[in-house]
């Protein structure tokens, strides 16, 4: 039992030691780990959160991250969705703060057009290759 208590003390002491590691001890924002009551709104928020990049992590969405900042961003998304804001408006708000980097969903712009043009070309080339094969025989 004594060992158990010592262990427990150690576990509880870990968060206190945290400032040294550069981690805060504050509770997460209310909606960081809490879903919206309305399942339809929550689903909307979920869909958006999966497409927003966690800025403190390496290549993870804010829906897949334990980083405090990802939690704060989830809170933002959920409260704004609950307030009736459109998901794309929230995305646009974040993009106006952090640039395109924050969104995993590239939108058509002067710097991203090849991402959309090349698939169209690929479709055409693929279609052409297949159709030519079909014709070649007839």
């Amino acid at each position: 039992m004594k060992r158990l208590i010592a262990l427990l003390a150690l576990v509880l002491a870990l968060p206190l030691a945290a400032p040294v590691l550069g981690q805060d001890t504050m509770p997460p924002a209310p909606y960081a780990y809490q879903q919206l009551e309305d399942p339809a709104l929550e689903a909307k928020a979920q869909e958006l959160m999966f497409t927003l990049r966690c800025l403190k992590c390496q290549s993870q969405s804010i829906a897949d991250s334990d980083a405090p900042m990802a939690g704060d961003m989830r809170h933002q998304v959920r409260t704004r969705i609950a307030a009736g804001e459109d998901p794309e408006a929230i995305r646009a708000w974040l993009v106006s703060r952090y640039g395109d980097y924050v969104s995993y969903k590239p939108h058509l712009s002067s710097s991203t057009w090849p991402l959309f043009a090349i698939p169209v070309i690929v479709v055409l080339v693929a279609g052409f290759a297949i159709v030519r094969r079909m014709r070649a025989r007839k």
Partner: protein
Amino acid sequence: MIPEIGLAALWLSAALAALQLIGGLLGAGEKSHPLAALVRPAALLQAGLCGLAFLCLLYSFIVTDLSVLLVANNSHSMKPMVFKIAGAWSNHEGSMLMWVTIMAVAGGAIALIERRLPERTMLATLGAQAFVGLGFYAFLLISSNPFERLNPAPPEGSGLNPLLQDVAAAYHPTTLYVGYVGLSVAFSFAVGALLTRNVTPDFARVMRPWVLGAWIFLTIGITAGSYWAYYELGWGGWWFWDPVENASLMPWLAATALLHSASVLAARDALRTWTIMLGVVAFSMSMVGTFLVRSGILTSVHAFAVDPERGSFILALLAINIGGALALFATRAGTVAEGERFSPMSREGALVVNNVMLSAILGIVLLGTLYPLLTEAFGVKVSVGPPYFDPVSAIFFFPMMAVLVIGPLLRWRKDSFARVKWPVLIAAALGLAVLIGTAVLTDIAVLALLGLGLSIAVAVSSFMPLRGRSLRRLPLAVWGMCIGHFGLAVALFGMSADSAFQQERLIASDIGDVVDIGPWQVRLDAVKPAAGPNWVAMEAEMQVAYEGGKWRDARPQDRHFWAPPQETSEVALITRWNGQLYVAMGNQVQDGRWQLRLWWKPFVTWIWYGGLLIALGGVLALVGRVVSDLRRRSAAGKLAERREEQEARA
């Protein structure tokens, strides 16, 4: 002493590779060149010596010889034996040594057993294999010597990183690696065939088992990696389109296409140029993947062992090998005669669609993965993620699945739809019924809906090729094809079902609270501390029940490692045939309740069962091919014997 033997063996095998390269090229150019006779023995000896070098490194790790720098940096006398052994290749130098060892052993195996191709083509192939190998020998011996000594030896090694002591972390990169290197053999065969202008069905038959073998390893590696991310990251995701994941997917896509085009070339002598090109592309993708992972130029969750200098070396090898092969190819392409023609309504026609679609997906994944790198060169940071990859790859993936319903039923060369009408209609009708039924009853996304319908159709049609055939006399390779395609359907079903029907609950729970999640009831009984060798954790004692049935234990942990300090979530997974309950534990809230993250993920395990079935299909096909090759060879041998006897009698 042992490390010095290893180093000497490595230098010797590099010298032998040089001999093999020169002899191979001279022999390929000129009939009966004196050096040509040395090529096969050189390849064999090189395999032996390289194997010996690898064993020397293994030995140093097993006995924890701390006077070897690599061991001192990556091992520890207290490590469990299995991780000591895995430690030999889970670092840069060791993994490069493993790379050349696999290459050398593969080269030796070709030299030993392969006699079906014209000797000149074989010599050119072995020469190409030695050329690729030499680059890696140079890399090892010049900049990453695994046998470097450390004087004085430290009292203890520094590698006791708990996070790398995970069984999955030990085998998952290794499997992928074997797959990557295996594709080098396909590359060498392609270059050899190209150099000697000898692209024949025999070439495809000889290359196919190697591609199959590499592809099996890649399939298992990707499947295992996906499951590892799923249970380790603690948020229930199984594919993130992360650059490193894409780096493993791209060679797999190319190898899958190569596998199918090689069967067209083997059976029908068509798609010659295309198959050669895929052979080059598949290995290119392996090297690009290795480069992306090692150089760290892309941001990824999996980034490890990153070093720009090594990156430049790999890039140089990449440019020499791939650039060289492509340029050779472009100058030679006109001289490879076009193969047989065929009707669109034929097995070949369907396989052409398969190849075009797979190549298109490969192109899209390559584009999306590298695009952020391109814009970064202009100072613009963008992210490309699931919202791009999912729909854009689906444009090509779903038509490919639709063709997969009919393709395997078609005959080679020319067929008519009327002949396969009924099985196709049955499969399509079942798929459509599921699609429409789901669309009416539920409200799920279009991609998931199409995925469900197509997976049913493909699952039904995947076993149709067995119809009307004697199951006992059916070649194993056909079984392999059916099971592989069925596995793809199973995996697609799992992906679609999980993304469409998964349910999530994030709650703060008091002790004794009962929560519903999908068909499950979850009760938190207690939260207690737990401890392991290098961690402490808060462990939740929970009971879960499916649809009011028996209560079962679930014990997720919030785990703290102390060296290095890191917090991980050890999830509890309760598996049923129709899905998994995923329980992750979070922190304590201020009012004393505990954060729990619960997911009910219907059919999610089918993703990985499907992946394993695909690999099993590959294994069956490989065994079938090898066995029938051996049988044919012994039959041919007997025939030759009999002929000799007859001649002797006459």
